[in-house]
């Protein structure tokens, strides 16, 4: 297992390397640069700025310097657009925020989704089942970006209960709306996978055997059915976890949380190459790690799998 983990991590390095190179060239392919603006800069000013940021060098040299600085100084370079900040600053400030509300949303979605799914499956074809299923589907079918304005309208303007945005160091009243907005669309899908997976498990032979032995339902569900039920859920959760962190652009946008989702989208639109690459590397690494963790979790849930 340890060997397997090490090998996977080793393979991750060239993967991320290729990822950065791909992102780097794709970025430079896009028209316009970080200093293209409504008022075109006089050529000599443009030259000064490009020289300062190393953009006058040939592309391969820029790429090489970029890697060199990361490996030697762990420096991801300066932001070209927010000129007082470095990429390290952007990530150091934004990532903990994304991580906090992302992880909380993930947790909320998983717990609520799994409970809904199990409730639906254990009371198959009852009203509990039907309402859980329709709730799940409705939550999933709503485009998640309309949740933001709706929540702010209801909780801030009409009820006056919660602040309409901001982060404030992650105080709970600032967290509620982002977490609800982000968790909603995943609750539905998690509930539906859990439900169908559980139904399948409950029909399998070993559960029938356990039933025949006269074990109480509660024991059967928690002791025997739980692990195999969660197997497909886990493989779904892995990518969701990364996505919850990358896909939070609408949360940052509507709730002014200051997370990385907004930085990421705006860095692509403003051609802030360094920020874009920095966050890409972060997300790439995160994907690789989470995929590894998912596979390891898989082994734990299903003893048949060995690495």
């Amino acid at each position: 297992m340890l060997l397997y983990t090490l090998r996977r991590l080793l393979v991750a390095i060239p993967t991320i390397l290729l990822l950065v190179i791909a992102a780097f060239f794709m970025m430079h392919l896009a028209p316009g640069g970080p200093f293209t603006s409504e008022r075109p800069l006089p050529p000599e000013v443009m030259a000064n700025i490009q020289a300062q940021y190393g953009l006058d060098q040939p592309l391969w040299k820029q790429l090489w310097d970029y890697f060199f600085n990361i490996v030697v100084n762990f420096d991801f370079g300066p932001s070209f657009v927010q000129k007082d900040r470095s990429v390290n600053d952007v990530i150091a400030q934004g990532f903990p925020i994304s991580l906090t509300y992302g992880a909380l949303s993930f947790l909320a979605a998983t717990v609520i989704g799994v409970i809904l799914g199990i409730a639906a499956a254990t009371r198959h074809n009852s009203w509990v089942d039907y309402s859980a299923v329709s709730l799940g589907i409705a939550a999933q079918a709503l485009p998640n970006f309309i949740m933001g304005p709706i929540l702010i309208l209801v909780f801030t303007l009409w009820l006056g209960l919660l602040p309409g945005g901001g982060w404030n160091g992650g105080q709970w009243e600032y967290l509620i709306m982002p977490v609800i907005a982000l968790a909603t669309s995943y609750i539905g899908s998690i509930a539906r996978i859990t439900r169908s997976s559980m139904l399948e498990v409950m029909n399998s032979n070993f559960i029938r055997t356990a039933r025949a032995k006269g074990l109480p339902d509660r024991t059967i569900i928690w002791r025997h059915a739980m692990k195999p039920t969660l197997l497909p859920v886990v493989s779904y959760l892995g990518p969701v976890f990364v996505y919850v962190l990358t896909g939070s652009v609408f949360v940052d946008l509507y709730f002014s949380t200051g997370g990385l989702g907004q930085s990421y989208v705006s860095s692509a639109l403003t051609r802030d190459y360094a920020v874009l690459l920095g966050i890409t590397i972060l997300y790439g690494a995160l994907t690789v790690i989470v995929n590894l963790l998912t596979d390891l979790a898989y082994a734990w849930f299903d003893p048949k799998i060995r690495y």
Partner: protein
Amino acid sequence: MFGRSEKAAALSADITDFKAVRGRSLFRDAMGRFVRNKAAMASVVILTLIVAFVIFGPLFAVWDNEEIDWANMGDIRRMGAPSLENGHYFGLDELGRDLYSRTIQATRTSLLVGLIGATMALIVGTAWGVIAGFYGGRLDSVMMRFVDILLAIPLTLVLILILVVAGRSFIALFLALGAVSWLTMARIVRGQTLTLKTREFIEAARAGGVSEPAIIFRHILPNLIGVVIVYASLLVPEMILAESFISFLGLGISEPMTSLGKLIAEGAGTMAYGTLWQLMFPLFFYVTIIITMFFIGDGLRDALDPKDR
């Protein structure tokens, strides 16, 4: 999101159990099971109605989708509400255009986006997966490594960059959606091909001197159809969701064309200003399409994969 869904996960879990060869009656059996699935059948009916609405709806339209109703555009909040009298059955949008015609046009766009996006994923993903799985060895590992790398690129980046580089058009939209959705398809197909490859009838065909392309076309592909169709049907709603995300970022197709995602994004912006119909009509069609597609996809999976229920 986008082709990395629960369904894919559930499917890949199912794949190992998937019985590849089931003879001629497979599809008739599956059809029978599908028809008995009430939710799926109801969804088919509703979806057919929506398609009929898209096709025949324009016959009843008084206004076309880009025409501005100058007389009523000044005060949308009071004059723009849905009305049978002035022919704006769904009311007016912020610019005084007929929402009925725009919703029809948007629904058509979204359905097309879903279908074409899923088809592209289907073609590219199947080809990629079959080749990697069938030929195996170094080619397989190179091809699958490539897929792994692409899967590690955040989708937002891919979508934004493609739409920025390629500009705003239907083609760019399909390219972008196709580009992010074929990866999981390729993985599923590859896995499926790997198991098929070792089966007796393929061995027999090989021994009988059938050429490799012929084996792929005559024996492998027909046996993949079930899993591919199921997955593709699940991709359709995801493509529609993805398009709405793109529209939200402001990178959707150009005016005067529109899509449901775009109409919803616009309607959501103005929902506090007393023009709620601008959100509700497109949202209704959007949600209905997504839900029916979910049920149809589920129904197809259950029908083509009879091992339980």
